[in-house]
C-alpha cells in the first residue's frame, strides 16, 4: 500500500486492516456539492469505529461509498484485499429506519438477503438460524409476527438480525437507533456491542450522539463540513466490555467534552 499515507491514518491496535480508504473524494455531479474530500481511513478487524459530525458533512455519503452503493469521484476503497466496486456479500448495512417489509413475517424478513442471493430453498434452510438470531436479540415468540405488530425498537432488533444473517465481515450502520427513545437506544447499543464482539465483526457507525460514539467505539472519526473531511480521529481507551455505568466515569466525560469541543470548533465555519 501507499506508505506515505500511513502516517495520516490512525488505526486501532487490533487486527489486520479490513477496510482501507485512501484519498476518497466525492463530488455530486447533480449540484457540484463536494461531499467528501481526501478521506483516508483504515478499519482494523474487530474494531468499532464511529463517525460524528454536523449534519451534511458527508457521513452518509462516506458510508454509501464504503458499501459500494455509489462510486467515489476519486480515491480508492479496498475491503478485505479487494476493491469495492459495487454491493458486496461481506458487507452488512443498517439504516435509520428498520425498513421491514409488511408482507413478510419477522423471520421471513430476516432471511430475505438469503432469498435474494441464493433463492427460496436456501432461505428456507436459513430459517433455523433466523430463529436463533431472533432469540439472541430478545424477539423469541415474535418470529411469525408481521412488522406492523412490532414496536420501533423491536423492528430495529429484527433488522439487526437481517443484517447479521449473511455473517458479514463488516457492519455499516447509518444512525441505526436514532429513531428510538433513549432507553431502548442504550439497550440496543449494548446489544450491538455484544453481537460485534461475539461475531468478531468490524463495525462502522454513523451517529449524532457523542455519548453513543464514545461508549461504543475504539476510535471516533470527527468530520467537518464543506467540504466534508476527516478533522481528527480520537481514540477511546475505555476498557471492554463497555457498560452503561461507564457513562458516569470522569474518563468518559473527558472524552465527550473533548469531542464536543472539536465539533464546536467547526460550527462557525
Amino acid at each position, binding site marked *: 500500500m501507499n506508505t506515505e499515507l500511513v502516517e495520516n491514518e490512525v488505526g486501532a491496535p487490533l487486527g489486520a486492516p479490513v477496510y482501507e480508504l485512501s484519498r476518497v473524494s466525492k463530488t455530486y455531479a447533480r449540484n457540484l456539492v463536494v461531499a467528501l474530500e481526501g478521506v483516508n481511513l483504515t478499519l482494523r478487524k474487530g474494531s468499532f469505529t464511529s463517525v460524528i459530525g454536523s449534519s451534511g458533512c458527508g457521513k452518509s455519503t462516506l458510508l454509501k461509498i464504503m458499501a459500494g*452503493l455509489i462510486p467515489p469521484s476519486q480515491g480508492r476503497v479496498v475491503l478485505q484485499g479487494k476493491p469495492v466496486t459495487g*454491493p458486496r456479500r461481506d458487507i452488512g448495512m443498517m*439504516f*435509520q*429506519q428498520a425498513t421491514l417489509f409488511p408482507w413478510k413475517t419477522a423471520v421471513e424478513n430476516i432471511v430475505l*438477503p438469503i432469498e*435474494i442471493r441464493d433463492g427460496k430453498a436456501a432461505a428456507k434452510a436459513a430459517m433455523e438460524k433466523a430463529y436463533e438470531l431472533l432469540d439472541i436479540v430478545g424477539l423469541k415468540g415474535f418470529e411469525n409476527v408481521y412488522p406492523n405488530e412490532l414496536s420501533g425498537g423491536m423492528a430495529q432488533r429484527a433488522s439487526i438480525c437481517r443484517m447479521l444473517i449473511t455473517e458479514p465481515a463488516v457492519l455499516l450502520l447509518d444512525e441505526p437507533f436514532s429513531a428510538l427513545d433513549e432507553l431502548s437506544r442504550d439497550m440496543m447499543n449494548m446489544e450491538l456491542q455484544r453481537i460485534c464482539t461475539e461475531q468478531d465483526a468490524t463495525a462502522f457507525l454513523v451517529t449524532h450522539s457523542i455519548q453513543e460514539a464514545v461508549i461504543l467505539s475504539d476510535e471516533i472519526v470527527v468530520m467537518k463540513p464543506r467540504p466534508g473531511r476527516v478533522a481528527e480521529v480520537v481514540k477511546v481507551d475505555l476498557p471492554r466490555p463497555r457498560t452503561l455505568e461507564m457513562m458516569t466515569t470522569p474518563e468518559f466525560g473527558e472524552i465527550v467534552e473533548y469531542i464536543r469541543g472539536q465539533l464546536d470548533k467547526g460550527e462557525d465555519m
Partner: protein
Amino acid sequence: MTDVSNAPSPADNAEDTVWVQEVAFIDSVPRWIAMTFVFLVFIGTWQFVTSFGLVSPIILPTPAETLKDMIFVGQNLLTGGYMLTALWITILEVIYGFALAIAIGFTLGVLVGETAFGEKAVMPYLVAIDTMPKVAFAPLFVAWLGFGIESKVALAAFIATFPIVVGTAAGLHAADENARMLFKTMGASRMQTLIKMKLPTGLPQIFTGLKIGAVGVMAGAITGEFLGGGKGFGELIRVAASQLNTPRVFSLILYLSLVGLALYLLVQFAQRKIVFWHKERVGSYDG
C-alpha cells in the same frame, strides 16, 4: 386504569375521575340506522315530489311504479328471459374489458414506472390521450370492430386502462430510498427488486387504480352500447327511454348498478386478501 402503582397513594380511596368523551349524536348513530334513515328520507322525498304532481310522471315515476317494474324485471332476469340474455352480454363486455384493461394497463404501468425510457417517452403520450374525452372514440371503435361486443369491450378497456397505468406507475415509485438501498446492498437484480419489493410496496396504489378502472369499465361498456347498438343492457335502457318508459329505465339502471357494485366489491375483496397488511382509511368509518 387508575391503579398503576402498587404503593398505596393518598388518593387511593378518592373517587375515580373516569369521564366520558363527548360524541355528537350524529356521529354516534349506528351505521344501519343511519343508512336506513337516509334511504327513507330519499324515498319519502321522492314520494312527496311525485304524489303532489310537482313533476310529470314521464320524467319521474312514483316509487311504487318503479318497485313494480323492478319486480317485473327481476322476474324476467330470474326466469332467464330476454333481459337476462342482455345482461349477460353486458357482463361479458365488462369482464373482457376489465381483463384487457388490467393486462394492458399493468404492462404499460410497469414500463412507465420502472424504466426511464417509459417515463420519458411513453408517459407524455399516455397523459395526452388520457386528457381526451375517451367516449368520443366510440364511433371509431364501432367503425373498426363493428356493432358486436368487440367495440364495447374496446371502449370499456380503453377507459379503464389509464387509471390502472397511473396506479401501477405510482405504486412502483412508492418504495422509499431506504428500501431501495437495502435491496442494492443485498445485491438484488433489477427484476428481483421489482418483483420482491417495488410491486408489493405499490399494491395499494395498484388496487386504487383497479377500483377506479372497475367503475370506468362499466361506464365504458354502457356508453359503447348506447352509441354502438348491440344487444346488451344498455340497449334495453336506450329503447325504454325512447318509449318514455321511465320506470323501466330506473329499474334497469338499478340492476345495472348491482353489477358495477359487484365488480367493485370483488376488487375490494381481492385487495383485502392480497394487501392484507395495508389498512385502508378512505371508505371506512371506524377510525
